[in-house]
Each structure stands twice: as structure tokens, then as C-alpha cells.
């Protein structure tokens, strides 16, 4: 072993290696593969937003901003969150602009967790949730969800997973990688559970605009929940602004003050050019967002239908831009399926186990790509399945 390893903190050294690191390494060597593996929009940021960023540079907007973010951005966020989620937050004390939801989540966890605290989170889930908790010297407690229930979070599973010391419940609807959403009834049960167990809820709602059936409801909008919820959101998915890295956290002022401390010492502020672009997205980006959402929904219908026709059972995801087909009928595990599909047919999908053990037997297929790519990829998957059955 490299002797410099001794300098690495124990809790970081103990973090499990991502099971898909090797898979990503293979993929990166195969740039000619058709990718259904992209966790970001295939659309370029709408030009009006890019133009706003360029104008900010032309005006010499190159300084730090208030730690909380530009006042105009926080006011814009307050209006947007009020109009779309029915939530009222003060731009002065309850809203913080961050470097994407990733930083918002990290700062929130670091602000609220003591060593040994426990965080409930539902999986399969975004890859950083458990590591972010562990980096706070806290314990990540998974709550499994299952295809039979369309990967909905059940209150029974929550109760089973709960244990003394649980302080936080981390939820993400619509969910990466399953595309699952939460019904009002389910949210009400989760809220009641949070009250009963006195949990702080951290709600990552980054995909909320990409809800295709029904309307998205934030758990923070349920009676009594605003006082125990940190609402996380951003611009990456709905406005195709992943590279701008700008998100935000909203919550009760005393907790936001604590999050602000972590943010100001660690980050200082989100980049001013990205903040200016975000202001433009909130002011004039709605039509572009709706146009992209319509495309995702049409592509979703195509890819889910094709997977089911191919014998890969796939529930209809109600949100985000991921399908999560069941590949267990092939007799292969997720990693083997994804690796062989990539090597033999040059189609990249992400093994479900990348998102936690509950993803075993599934692969994530992003439909954030063209119709042509979806059709070609499905044709190759059909060929791959034929070779397996031969």
C-alpha cells in the first residue's frame, strides 16, 4: 500500500469505493457508444439564459456576492417557490443560493448532524446521499423501495428502518434513478411520521418540474412541515443548467443561519455569473422549460414501451428523465448486464446497483437523448437479448 495512505482520514478511507467506477472507466473509453447513461439534460441551456450570463461578464459582474446570493436571485426564488410550491420564504433570512443541490445538501447535513446521528434515506437513490452523510461522521440508514410498488416509499418500510438516534429523513421526489413520485397521500403519511419521530426532513426536489402525471407537491407545504423541512432545489434539470452549478436551500431561519455558516466558510458564495443566469431563468425561462418537459415525456413513453415490448419489464416513471427497467429476466446481474451490453452492443446504461443494493436487477436508462438514439439503442438491446437467449 502507498504509505501516503496514512494521511487520509479514516472515515474517508472507509467510504466504500463506488461500484460503478470500473464501469465508468470502460464507458469513458467508448465514446462511440450510444449513451442512455447521462444524468443531465441533453439540451443546451436556452440561449436567453446564456446571453444573460454573457451580459453579466460584459458588465464586469465578476465579484463575490452576498454569502446568501444576490438579493435579486433570492427574491426571484421566493416568488418562484411561492407560485409553484405554495411555500413562502423570506429572501433575507430563509433562502440561500448554493453551488447546485449537491452543495446545498452537503451544507445542510453538515449544519444539522452531530457525529453518530442517523439519517434515513430511501433507495435506490442518487449516489452521493449516503457518502455525504458518512462524511459528517453520521450514519446513513437506507429504506428500500421496490418495483412492485413502483418504488414508492412505504410508511411500513420507514417504520422498520427507523431506530433511536434518527434525526433526519432525506427524500427525493421525483427520484433519480427510478422516476418515482410521491402522492399527496404518501407525503401526508411521511409528514405524520416525521412529526411522530421528530425528524428534520431534507427534501431534494431538483426534478420537481419534470413531473408528468399529476402535480408535484412539496412536503414542506403540508401543515406544520415548513418548520421541519429544508427544501432543496436548483436550476440544473428543469432549465438545463447543470454546468452553471447553481441551486438553493430554503428553510426556517435558525437552521438556514447554521447552513449559511457552513456555506460561507466553505464556499463563500455561488458564482455571480451563474446567479445572474439563474435570475434570467426564473424571469423568462418558463416556456423553454415546458418545451423540454414535453420532449422528455414523449421520449419516456417511447422508451418505456420499447423496454416492455422487449420483455424488460419497466414501470412508467412519473417524473425525472429516467426509466428503470427490470433486467432480472435475463439471468444477469445489473453490473454484468450493463457491462456486456456496453462491450457487445455499445449501449451505455447505468447498473441499478450504482444507486444502492435496492437497485439490484435493474438498470437506469436516461431518455435525455434523441429519438434516433433511443430507437437505435433499443434495437441493439433487442439484439443483445437475442444473443442471450440463443
Amino acid at each position, binding site marked *: 500500500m502507498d504509505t501516503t495512505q496514512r494521511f487520509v482520514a479514516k472515515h474517508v478511507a472507509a467510504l466504500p469505493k463506488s461500484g460503478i467506477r470500473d464501469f465508468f472507466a470502460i*464507458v469513458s473509453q467508448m*465514446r462511440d457508444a450510444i449513451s442512455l447513461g447521462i444524468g443531465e439534460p441533453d439540451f443546451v441551456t436556452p440561449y436567453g439564459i446564456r446571453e444573460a450570463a454573457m451580459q453579466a461578464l460584459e458588465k464586469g459582474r465578476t465579484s463575490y456576492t452576498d454569502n446568501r446570493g444576490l438579493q435579486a436571485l433570492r427574491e426571484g426564488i421566493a416568488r418562484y417557490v411561492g407560485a409553484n410550491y405554495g411555500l413562502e420564504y423570506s429572501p433575507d433570512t430563509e433562502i440561500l443560493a448554493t453551488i447546485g443541490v449537491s452543495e446545498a445538501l452537503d451544507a445542510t447535513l453538515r449544519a444539522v448532524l452531530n457525529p453518530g446521528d442517523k439519517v434515513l434515506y430511501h433507495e435506490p437513490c442518487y449516489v452521493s446521499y449516503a457518502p455525504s452523510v458518512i462524511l459528517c461522521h453520521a450514519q446513513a440508514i437506507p429504506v428500500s423501495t421496490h418495483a412492485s410498488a413502483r418504488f414508492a416509499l412505504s410508511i411500513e418500510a420507514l417504520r422498520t428502518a427507523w431506530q433511536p438516534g434518527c434525526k433526519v429523513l432525506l427524500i427525493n421526489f421525483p427520484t433519480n434513478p427510478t422516476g418515482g413520485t410521491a402522492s399527496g397521500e404518501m407525503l401526508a403519511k411521511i409528514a405524520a411520521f416525521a412529526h411522530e419521530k421528530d425528524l428534520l426532513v431534507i427534501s431534494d426536489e431538483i426534478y420537481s418540474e419534470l413531473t408528468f402525471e399529476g402535480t408535484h407537491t412539496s412536503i414542506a407545504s403540508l401543515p406544520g412541515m415548513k418548520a421541519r423541512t429544508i427544501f432543496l432545489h436548483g436550476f440544473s434539470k428543469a432549465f438545463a443548467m447543470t454546468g452553471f452549478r447553481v441551486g438553493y436551500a430554503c428553510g426556517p431561519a435558525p437552521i438556514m443561519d447554521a447552513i449559511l455558516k457552513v456555506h460561507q466558510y466553505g464556499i463563500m458564495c455561488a458564482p455571480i455569473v451563474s446567479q445572474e443566469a439563474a435570475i434570467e431563468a426564473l424571469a423568462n425561462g418558463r416556456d423553454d422549460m415546458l418545451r423540454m418537459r414535453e420532449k422528455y415525456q414523449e421520449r419516456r413513453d*417511447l422508451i418505456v*414501451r420499447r423496454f416492455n415490448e422487449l420483455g424488460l419489464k419497466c414501470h412508467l416513471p412519473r417524473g425525472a428523465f429516467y426509466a428503470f427497467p427490470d433486467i432480472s429476466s435475463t439471468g444477469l446481474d445489473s453490473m454484468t448486464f450493463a457491462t456486456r451490453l456496453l462491450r457487445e452492443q455499445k449501449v*451505455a446504461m447505468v447498473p441499478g446497483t450504482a444507486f444502492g443494493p435496492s437497485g439490484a436487477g435493474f438498470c437506469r436508462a436516461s431518455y435525455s437523448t434523441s429519438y*434516433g438514439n433511443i430507437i437505435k439503442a433499443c434495437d441493439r438491446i433487442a439484439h443483445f437479448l437475442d444473443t442471450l437467449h440463443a
Partner: protein
Amino acid sequence: MNAVLKLLLEGEPLDAKQLAQILAFPQAEVDAQLATLKASGIFLGWRAVLNPAYEEDRTVRALIEVKVRPEGGLGYDHIAGRISRFEQVETCYLLSGAFDLLVIVKDASLRKVASFVHERLAKLEGVQSTATCFMLRAYKEQGYVMENGSANLDKPIVSP
């Protein structure tokens, strides 16, 4: 809007088989709808879009502002229809404003375009005057912005 037409207008090159897959129609249904759209003059056809800066394409394009005097009883449609029939004419619009018709002409050389204007266009009955603007450079062509290289070469093909 017709679902087949909507997909065509989005611009992704899709054949009838692919359209059928996307729409969950039998391919025969897509073929029939395409035929109806063409027969009814709604869908006019496909054209490849060439970068006007392509060196092997030596053609010249001009925008011609045409003032016309509508002929008795026939109106603008008659003369615009006659102008539109020339092979050199790519596009012909009736506009509001200082002139009546905007005619976009493409031909093999500047001399040929000039010849078309003074030998054909200007001599048509009802044409009062023309003002010809030769296109020097294209910055955007039928929705395509002229840019060098792809913006997304560094984008990872898999991300969480």
C-alpha cells in the same frame, strides 16, 4: 397538430419506421398520413440545409425587394405566383411595409442573378421596381447557427 407533422417539424431526421415506433402507430398508418399531408399541400417536402460558406458551393444568393402594381382584378397573388415559378426563386413572400414582395434568388454566379433581375424579373408586367441585396455571409441558416466545432465534446457520456 397532426402527430406525424409535429415530429417532422422538430427537425430530427426520422424515417417512417422510426416515426411509427415513436407514435406507436403501424408503419402503414404513418405512410398514409405522410401521403395525405403531401397530397393536401400541408407538408411540402424535405431539403438538405447546406452551410452557405461551403467552398464547393459557388452559388450566389440575393434578396430582392420588389415593388409591384397589382394588375386589374388579379391582385398580388397573380404576379407573385409568376415570380415564384422561376427555378432561381427559392422563396417569395408578400410583405407589409416599404415594398411588396421579398424574393430570394439563388443562381450560379453574381452575373446570372443580375441577369435574372433585369432580364426576367424587372420585365414582368406589374413590377415597378426592384432593389437587389446580395448575401455576403450567413450567420444562421434555417435554424442552424454557423459555429465551428461542437460545444459538447467534453460532456461525459455517463453521469450519475
